[in-house]
């Protein structure tokens, strides 16, 4: 494993580590058809949008330290419905002040602030909501698992300052399974996929991944090759 990835685990990184391999990978994707395998040429490529949680042969996705002959076969994020709690809270937070405005004079009659100060308070409130949405979306967006023709990379972002990157080669995968408990998960077809690796290597878990059965099938096909 590249040592720079060890430096990235669980740490807040200020400096950017530019890798020529990444630039080469981007160039290869754009300019050099030879970098693409024959199987993928026949496969249906698609450009995932910003709220894609499952994408096969995603175009326009580049992994850091991606090799020239490495191709991303599957992009997995948590099912988009899992964002419902913070989306609902954000919507409530946006609407709430407008419901409160008629009641403000009676509730806070002892407070006497100028119009400009009230505007500043309102602006600050809404920028906090914007920040809340940005952070929550970032956590969902960057919490991603990528399956390539060589390895599986799992980027876990638990907070805006905390992340863990793990990867394993496909030939080290021993077993793969999934669990889908509860009505919500069954209705929206998402579950936890567990990828067990050899020996003392850590296992991978794709938390609340969409179409878990399909993920299992895809990875099993890759292992079987």
């Amino acid at each position, binding site marked *: 494993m590249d040592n720079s990835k060890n430096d990235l685990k669980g740490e807040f990184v200020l400096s950017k580590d530019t890798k020529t391999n*990444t630039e080469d990978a981007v160039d290869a994707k754009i300019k050099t058809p030879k970098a693409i395998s024959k199987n993928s040429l026949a496969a249906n490529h698609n450009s*995932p949008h910003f709220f894609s949680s499952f994408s096969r042969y995603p175009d326009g996705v580049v992994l850091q330290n991606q090799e020239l002959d490495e191709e991303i076969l599957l992009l997995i994020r948590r099912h988009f419905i899992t964002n419902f709690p913070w989306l609902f809270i954000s919507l409530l937070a946006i609407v709430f002040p407008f419901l409160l405005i008629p009641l403000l004079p009676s509730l806070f009659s002892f407070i006497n602030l100028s119009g400009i100060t009230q505007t500043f*308070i309102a602006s*600050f409130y809404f920028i906090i909501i914007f920040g809340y949405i940005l952070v929550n979306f*970032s956590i969902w*967006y960057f919490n991603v698992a*990528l399956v390539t023709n060589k390895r599986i990379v799992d*980027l876990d*972002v638990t907070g805006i300052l905390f992340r863990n990157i793990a990867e394993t080669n496909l030939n080290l995968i021993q077993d793969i399974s999934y669990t889908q408990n509860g009505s919500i998960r069954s209705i929206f077809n998402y579950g936890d996929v567990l990828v067990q690796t050899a020996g003392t290597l850590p296992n991978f878990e794709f938390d609340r991944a969409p179409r878990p059965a399909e993920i299992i099938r895809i990875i099993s096909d890759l292992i079987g090759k």
Partner: protein
Amino acid sequence: MSITDIIQLIQTLFSNQDLIVKIILIVLLSLYVLFAIIVSRQIFVLNEIVNQISFSPIFKILSVIHVIIAILLLVSNILNI
């Protein structure tokens, strides 16, 4: 300055609610600008790790806009004091 003067100053300060709120806002906004810069930086770094070429620039721009708005709000609040 005697204790009476200090007490009188504090009373004057606290009698002006607008000033108190503005000071609190400036402090909170300063912290928020710091938070916005950190979030923006993390978004840039994470986009280097997993780069979705079609959306990555938009995401970076949104994070920068967030920082700019926070800074503008802070500066305008300071100037308005």
